[in-house]
């Protein structure tokens, strides 16, 4: 199983990078992270992008899955007749749950005499809602039908559904696949491992009571600041990224304080939230600075660690602890700045332009400051969400439900004509809310936290209960 899972994982990354990559690119529109990368020198940006995309799944996420998975499978192998024969892994809809599950399965350690493994190795959803059930039947089949009766009580196989959201489409015929799973797979003499997006899970729970057929449900944990820092540390070290101190007295000299904040009187609540967050982060950093000064704890190492720690705490807070959102916000916060690096004595002639007044007529040596360009991580901020109409919310909820969709599937899910849906998709794409490549559409992860709150406030089933 481990080898199969590892192969599946590699295949997912190679063939469906747009769905699974940390910084996947829209075919046409430039995302927030790409804009930040574009501000860096080309060679640095390329290396940074490659390094980010090569980041493995966070070990904390994998560990959160691995232990309960191993225990559940071991328990089932010992007692196949027990009712505990399934486990569901839930992830945020923007996180590629199939990749996380595949990576966890590739590290699974189970007994040598394990049952056969049946992996639903789809790398994309079936094109039409009415073809899902047929394809599930073809691939998963019925494990028990050919076995003699005495063998039907033995542990037969482990079925893995890396992404349950691909096994249904929100349409009249699109739920037939779930009916099939409920009647054939979940009740049979086999252990089922399912990966699913949280929104899709909540939908199946309230409509078809799918949770009644499942035993254990594991939510991928929210990553803390410390965990995010540990995960992104290789990139920070590789590119020697510095973190700005957001303490007030250190920001007073900077002219572009409110550049990123799009304050608008038309969105008073969002503007107030933005200002409050900014003020809270600045106040916290200032307090920390004052405390350090009073304690006399102004050691260089501690001083650089604190802004870094505050940065990652803030990153965890605004990204809701979701790794893919955190990494995109991290990239978005990077900029290239020349920082004061070293001092050296130099001659008057040939000095920098800003020292011209001091130099003119001085005729003596002076201390010259050279500036080395460096990548700086500014305080991370969520990009503002543009105003969304009711029809936009319906479309975005549909995307959250399924993870990713083609135009045809999205139109079927919404019950609208494909052309109308396509028009709407292109508008949202131009605003950066969704991304599209090779006919596949998905929500831009960086907008997920705000979008989730917007949908929840408008009565859509979003929150995990």
């Amino acid at each position, binding site marked *: 199983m481990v080898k199969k899972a590892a192969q599946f994982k590699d295949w997912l990354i190679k063939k469906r990078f747009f769905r699974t990559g940390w910084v996947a690119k829209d075919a046409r529109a430039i995302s927030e992270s790409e804009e930040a990368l574009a501000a860096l020198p080309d060679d640095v940006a390329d290396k940074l992008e490659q390094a980010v995309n090569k980041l493995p799944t966070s070990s904390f996420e994998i560990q959160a899955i691995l232990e309960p998975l191993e225990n559940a499978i071991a328990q089932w192998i010992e007692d196949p007749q027990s009712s505990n024969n399934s486990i569901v892994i839930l992830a945020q809809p923007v996180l590629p749950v199939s990749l996380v599950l595949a990576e966890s399965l590739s590290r699974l350690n189970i007994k040598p005499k394990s049952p056969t493994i049946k992996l639903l190795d789809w790398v994309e959803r079936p094109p039409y809602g009415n073809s899902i059930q047929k394809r599930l039947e073809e691939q998963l089949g019925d494990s028990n039908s050919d076995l003699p009766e005495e063998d039907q009580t033995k542990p037969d196989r482990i079925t893995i559904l890396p992404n349950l959201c691909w096994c249904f489409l*929100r*349409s*009249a015929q*699109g*739920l037939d696949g779930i009916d099939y799973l409920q009647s054939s797979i979940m009740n049979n003499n086999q252990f089922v491992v399912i990966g699913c997006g949280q929104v899709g899970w909540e*939908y199946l729970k*309230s*409509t*078809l009571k799918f949770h009644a057929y499942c035993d254990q449900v594991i939510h991928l944990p929210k990553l803390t600041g410390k965990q995010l820092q540990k995960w992104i540390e290789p990139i920070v070290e590789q590119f020697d990224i510095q973190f700005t101190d957001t303490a007030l007295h250190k920001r007073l000299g900077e002219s572009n304080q409110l550049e990123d904040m799009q304050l608008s009187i*038309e*969105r*008073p*609540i969002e503007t107030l939230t933005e200002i409050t967050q900014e003020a809270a982060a600045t106040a916290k950093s200032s307090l920390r600075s004052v405390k350090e000064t009073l304690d006399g704890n102004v050691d260089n190492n501690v001083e650089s660690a604190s802004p870094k720690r505050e940065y990652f705490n803030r990153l965890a807070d605004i990204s809701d602890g979701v790794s893919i959102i955190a990494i995109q916000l991290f990239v978005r916060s990077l900029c290239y700045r020349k920082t004061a690096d070293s001092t050296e004595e130099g001659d008057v002639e040939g000095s920098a332009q800003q020292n011209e007044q001091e130099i003119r007529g001085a005729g003596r040596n002076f201390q010259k400051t050279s500036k080395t360009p460096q990548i700086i991580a500014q305080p991370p901020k969520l990009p503002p969400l543009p105003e969304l109409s*009711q029809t936009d919310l*319906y479309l975005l*909820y*549909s995307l959250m439900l399924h993870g990713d969709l083609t135009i045809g599937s999205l139109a079927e*899910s*919404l*019950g609208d004509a494909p052309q109308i849906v396509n028009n709407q998709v292109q508008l949202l794409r131009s605003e950066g809310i969704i991304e599209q490549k090779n006919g596949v559409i998905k929500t831009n992860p960086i907008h997920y936290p705000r979008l989730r709150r917007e949908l929840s*406030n*408008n*009565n*859509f*089933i979003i929150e995990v209960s």
Partner: protein
Amino acid sequence: MVPLTRSPLWALIAQAAQDSAREAASEAGNQTRELIGKITGPKILQALAISVTCYLTIKGVDAFVTWLSERVARHNRLSIKQFQPFVRTAVLTVTIILLMNLFLNLSRDNVLAVTGTVAVALGFAFKDYASSIIAGIVGLFEAPYRVGDRVVIADEYGEVVSYGLRGIRLQTPSDNIVTVPHSYIWTNAVSNANMGELEAQVVTEFYLAHEVNPEQVENILYRIAYTSKYTHLKLPIVVVMTERSWGSLYKLRSYPLDARDEFVYQTDLTVRAKKEFARHNLTYPKRFDLLENDQN
């Protein structure tokens, strides 16, 4: 014999009546003069300014409430709109008091003197208007309808878009605005679909032949409701069936996420259900009897 009208007694009576009338008129005149203050140019300008300010304030509050209600989370929209009639009433009351203070010397005696004389006359003229105003004030607290509610009143169905001093304004599905005086609620029933909530139940009817398998139809209708983008999944979805002489009537009772989408939601359910019926070859009734009563 001297005629009665030429007798000294008659002359006395006539003189007394004349004196009495002159005295009453003089007293009324004095009272009026006491009550009504001097009407001067500046006072008129002041009154105009107060009236214009009142008008602009009401318009401003209406616009602000509408703007704010469209920007907050959906479940707060109606709560914000319901402030509108209270603010309007307060502004109008303040304006009337200011105008009365401007033109009338409102002492206790003056008020009492005028009230008795004028009240009867005005009472008859404005009894219906007063009834509507009082009903409106009672309605603010009893709340048979509120701004944002979808009601059936005076044979009209629509959304209450405005709650004025005298009546409400309903916006019907055909985009007509119907004004209904508040006094209507004294003796008539008001049917309210959502009572201040954002969600209102939508009932979609389907007519099928007797031969059709009812369980299959139920499953289809539940599936249609679950898969509509408009459906509010946190609220119940129920299919109710009734037998008629011409066939079977199925009613799908469900809630849209936003009550404003009521009709487009019904259309969505109907279109998608009909597709499924066609796919399963479910037949429609051959005849109808529209006179049969429907209780559920």
